[in-house]
């Protein structure tokens, strides 16, 4: 794992941009309670010691299947739910770095405007009893950015930017389709001009033709507002399209992280290889040479010993059962946690061009 001193702000070698968010050893454990008196017998390690950095202006993808912890990680990073451990180092516009995980509610409040979230389900992420004006205006109100008439003006402007008519602000969410509601959610996330937006499966619940519109919108807004995205998704084609770098999660851990092209064409972790081969290719000429994984995703309350992936891994050896691999930089900019990373040659996605 890269050891980075806390006080200085490391820069990305290629882009020259500073790190906006540096997550170290993030943990979120959910206690398991049993019995009449609900005492704690164990814990589900939803997020189990993950570390990653997001550079300013980039889109970092966080992929994985259900139960891998990506949504939990996204919510922890914004302190939507409380992490059990770890550091979330955020670089403020002044250049100063603070650990979000350590701040109390009062100290966290002024930073909320910089960190926002777009949710997956357009039906449950908007309060059905509030008008669009209330919904999109709330962040402005609670962060004391505007009040009264000014909120209306700003909300009108935001709605226009996401492609909705400003007069719609008097309407309630039930007047809109899924795609339109998602735009409202995006408008809300951008109301305070945040610096980091965590997008949690923003297009998964949308129709195929609406997805393209929404993805284009997200990209346009990124350049217009100079946003940094943490893009959580299970859809590999969408992630490949929109992300600069990608981190793959399995059972609460990050198993691989690299630039998009490198990850997709030359994965270093067997799980990534399986994911790539399983993802349906939209070209009937590509013969699906599937690597079919054995077994099922293990119970997160009872993970396997050593490397979590070893029971399903075709390349597993004895060591994998006993010793958990270290997450390290195997090639420049390409991290993975696999004992055999340097010796295996894994198959990625052949480029369709």
């Amino acid at each position, binding site marked *: 794992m890269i050891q980075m001193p806390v006080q200085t702000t490391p820069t990305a070698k290629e882009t020259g941009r500073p790190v906006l968010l540096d997550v170290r050893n993030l943990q979120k454990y959910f206690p398991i309670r049993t019995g009449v008196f609900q005492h704690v017998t164990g814990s589900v390690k939803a997020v189990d010691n993950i570390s990653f950095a997001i550079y300013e202006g980039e889109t970092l993808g966080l992929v994985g299947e259900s139960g891998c912890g990506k949504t939990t990680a996204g919510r922890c990073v914004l302190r939507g739910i409380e992490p059990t451990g770890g550091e979330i180092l955020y670089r403020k516009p002044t250049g100063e770095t603070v650990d979000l995980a350590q701040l109390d509610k009062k100290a966290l409040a002024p930073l909320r405007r910089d960190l926002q979230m777009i949710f997956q389900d357009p039906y449950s992420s908007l*309060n059905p009893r509030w008008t669009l004006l209330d919904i999109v205006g709330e962040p402005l109100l609670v962060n004391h950015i505007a009040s009264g008439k000014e909120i209306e003006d700003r909300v009108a402007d935001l709605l226009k930017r996401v492609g909705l008519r400003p007069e719609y602000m008097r309407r309630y969410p*039930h007047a809109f389709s899924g795609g339109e509601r998602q735009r409202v959610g995006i408008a809300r996330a951008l109301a305070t001009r945040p610096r980091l937006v965590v997008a949690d499966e923003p297009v998964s619940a949308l129709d195929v033709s609406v997805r393209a519109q929404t993805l284009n919108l997200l990209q346009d807004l990124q350049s217009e507002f100079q946003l940094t995205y943490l893009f959580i998704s299970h859809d590999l084609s969408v992630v490949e399209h929109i992300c600069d770098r990608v981190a793959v999660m399995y059972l609460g851990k990050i198993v691989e992280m690299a630039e998009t092209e490198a990850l997709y064409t030359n994965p270093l972790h067997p799980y990534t290889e399986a994911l790539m081969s399983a993802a349906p290719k939209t070209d009937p000429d590509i013969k699906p040479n599937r690597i079919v994984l054995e077994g099922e995703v293990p119970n997160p309350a009872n993970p396997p010993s050593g490397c979590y992936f070893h029971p399903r891994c075709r390349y597993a050896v004895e060591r994998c059962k006993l010793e958990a691999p270290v997450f390290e930089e195997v090639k420049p900019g390409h991290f993975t946690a696999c004992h055999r990373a340097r010796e295996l040659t894994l198959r990625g996605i052949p480029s369709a061009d």
Partner: protein
Amino acid sequence: MRNISLPFPFRKKGPGKAAGFEEKADEQVYVASQWQLMWWKFRKHRMAMVGGVIVILLYIMAAFVEIIAPYNPETQDARYAYRPPTKIHFVDRAGRFYITPFFYGTHSERDLETLSLRFSEDYQKIYPLRFFVRGDEYRLWGLIPMDIHLFGSPDPEARFFLMGADKQGRDMFSRIVYGSRISMSVGLLGVVLSFLLGIIIGGVSGYYGGTVDTIIQRVIEFLRSIPTIPLWMSLSAALPANWPPVRMYFGITIILSLIGWTGLARVVRGRFLALREEDFVMAAKISGSSESRIIFRHMVPSFFSHIIAALTLSVPEMILSETSLSFLGLGLRYPAISWGVLLQDAQNIRAVASAPWLMLPGAAVVLAVLALNFLGDGLRDAADPYGR
């Protein structure tokens, strides 16, 4: 995922309406608040509407008992003991139709074997019924002295008994009307108290979860598992018997609500627990909303309609509880008048066999409870107009 943007069942137009009209109707729906949507959905539930109308009428009656009842409840006349209900006619014996309803005088004779009075109509005396007649004096709400009654006979000698008379010759209809004031309002007061207790305790339980929630839930379960009648009996016996009716009334109300809050608390807790997981609550938190703002501006409006439905459904419980308590002699007592107190007179099987109209207060209870239940059902179905 259905791509229909409007929730069922708000499209009111048929396939042939003009486009402009559709747009206006749409716009109405788009800007409809949750109360509006609830009302539209509620309107479709016919039984609930009927129930609602009946409930409103009952409460109007309860507010204006003194005017609506033809007689004061204590107006006695031994000559009319156990008189059967007076028949109201529109056509006289000669076949003539009268617009104004009328009734005949009462002719009584004593049966020499049973020694009870037997009544028949005295066709010589015809008494018309009129609206707004002067009759027994009373004080409206205990304050304003008046003597106007909604309907009655202008002739003070002419007595009529729409629902028969009791042992003392008191008009049952008037007594039932008077009884509605206490029976219907005990429900309300008790429910308001339960509401406050239920929301606070249920809210705390649901919002904080964890140990607090567990403890509160166990307490609730314990309370609910105590058999109600013995519990009422002991609590009621704890009230001094020499208390004046009004104080007794409040005492009973407080007793009922101390037990009744548990149902509501569970509903509130359930809703809180469900709401905590909603994305829009998380969104509000990440936007920077304070906890109190989230509770009062986001969560409470979300379950408010459910609370109203739950409250409406708990009123009949209160009414039935008070009726049962008073019927058993544990609740209100003479001279207070409630339907339960009136039903005490119906405890005597022999009296009831010869004067079945003594049970009519029970019919009033049934009517009120049914109407409230239908109303509550309709509210509950409409409570979540978003159909999720």
